[in-house]
């Protein structure tokens, strides 16, 4: 039995929007094991974005416990969370979110820069780009790359710090289905070969179907785990 990389217990997140209190999460508990591929699905407003932000340490829960890679992160300060994000979380976004001014290599290097002075940063970034099949394109800027290639750069960027989890938010949402398929193939092979834990937030049933497990969120709680 492999260990849990993510454990949450009774996560609650409440927003104040004007006069109304929005209960985005109402006591959500889940566990994700190292090396798993998990799809988080659910209708809009179900709280899955909130869950993703908390799992990615972008946001803090109002109450509840969250252990990421054995570290309790629920009560951490901003800068501590930044460090956790930097070392333990890789993000893949729907709209890639690459820096348009910078080359593919600089984009991939970015998390390493915030990690401090890591020797051989360039080599590490080059290896990450090679792992996604872009070793020929390291000096290209995002606008010189196709959508699929841009998302590969983003995946390399997510991999480069060797994170405990990778969170992908609709990774194929901006791509046509063929390229989306390739990106999913890449993610799955990274999971197989490097044992990367993948959390995919998606609407797309075809994407969700490739995950080892689907977690369905409805009204701020896990509806059914399969």
């Amino acid at each position, binding site marked *: 039995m492999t260990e849990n990389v993510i454990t949450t217990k009774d996560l609650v997140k409440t927003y104040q929007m004007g006069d109304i209190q929005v209960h985005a999460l109402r006591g959500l508990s889940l566990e994700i094991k190292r090396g798993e591929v998990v799809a988080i699905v659910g209708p809009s407003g179900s709280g899955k974005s909130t869950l993703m932000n908390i799992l990615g340490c972008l946001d803090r829960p109002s109450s509840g416990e969250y252990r990421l890679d054995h570290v309790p992160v629920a009560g951490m300060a901003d800068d501590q969370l930044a460090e956790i994000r930097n070392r333990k979380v890789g993000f893949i976004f729907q709209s890639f*979110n690459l820096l348009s001014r910078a080359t593919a290599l600089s984009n991939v290097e970015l998390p390493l820069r915030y990690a401090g002075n890591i020797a051989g940063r360039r080599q590490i970034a080059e290896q990450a780009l090679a792992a996604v099949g872009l070793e020929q394109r390291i000096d290209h800027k995002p606008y010189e790359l196709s959508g699929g290639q841009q998302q590969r750069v983003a995946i390399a960027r997510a991999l480069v710090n060797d994170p405990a989890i990778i969170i992908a938010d609709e990774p194929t949402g901006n791509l046509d289905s063929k390229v989306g398929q390739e990106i999913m193939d890449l993610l799955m092979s990274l999971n197989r070969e490097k044992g990367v834990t993948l959390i995919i937030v998606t609407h797309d049933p075809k994407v969700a179907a490739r995950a080892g497990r689907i977690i369905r969120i409805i009204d701020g709680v896990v509806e059914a785990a399969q």
Partner: protein
Amino acid sequence: MNLTQILFEALESLNSNKMRSGLTILGIIIGVAAVIAMLAVGSGAQNEITGSINDFGTNLLFIFSGNEQVEVRNPRPLTLKDAEAIGDPFFAPSVGLAAPSINGKHIVTAGGKETSVAVNGITASYAPVRNEVVGEGEFISEAHVFERASVAVIGPETAEALFGRQTGLLGETIRIEGQPFRIIGVLEAKGGTMMGSQDDRILIPLSTAQSRLEQRDTIDTVDVIFIQAVSSEAVLQASEEVAQVLRTRHRTAIGMDDFTIYTQDDFLSTAESITGILTIFLGGIAAISLLVGGIGIMNIMLVSVIERTREIGLRKALGARKNDILIQFLAESSLLSLLGGFIGILLGWALSFLIEKISIAMGSPFYPSITLDSVLLATIFSLVVGLFFGIYPSNRAASLQPVEALRYE
């Protein structure tokens, strides 16, 4: 991230929006250029005035009647006898020469041309005391004073105004208040000064001025006594001796001197404090434009923060701490203003050069001088402006919450 990287990224980001960066630093460029040029004009004026005061003469003291510090009743005027006593080495050994002078402004005509000129009645010792050099002809002699001769030594500008030339004037006649005077010499040019031209005046024997031009109640009265000390070290000693002589002669009460003695240094320090104020004033006005430039930077940085909200969100998601973002934006704003500062210094230098050329072309040469101080001041000031006006926008960027920043469209 290390410093080189930070600066490189800041440069890259400024470079990616050249037009906007250029327009932003324009405010700083103009501000710094104005500061540099105005300070150069100020210190140029200072040099000019200091120079012209030194042109007055060497080891010079000036004695005037009256006292500005203490209210003295019925101050006695200075007289020729006073001047003689002061010039006596027995009473005042530190005094080399004493040159009394009476001054007036009179209408002078020659060959149908008319001008209003300062006319100084002087003695032969005036020339060495005041560093006067005659270019053509001779200076006024003891004999001229003794004879009350109707002779005149005229300044080059006066000559130009009356005759249209500065040479071949010996023996020509000019009329001062209608009375004829024969020209016996023309002074060499001393150059224009900020305090009025020393080249536009007429020198005549003191005795002639007393009897023919100036209506005075006591015939002996003089306006100023110029004194040359025997050496520069003796200036203060001379001042003390002169005061002693005048106190005895005027029978003044203790602390109630009815005369004032200025040394050249007094004039220099007065002039320097005036030009100092001028420089601060000019620099202050220029500094306001630098301030406005700084506000321009803040404005653009705020826009830039809003525009790059998503980028900030992404950087935070990838692990940027608050300080990383803060430093990134501060680096950009200080780089902007520092760059503007450097270009502004060059422009300010060009501007001072232009002022010099224009003043020469207009016939009254003026030499602005750029000092290292003003360059350092402008550099540091522009950097501080960039940092100060960068703090607010940078702090705003650094305080963005990653979730909201990433969601921003």
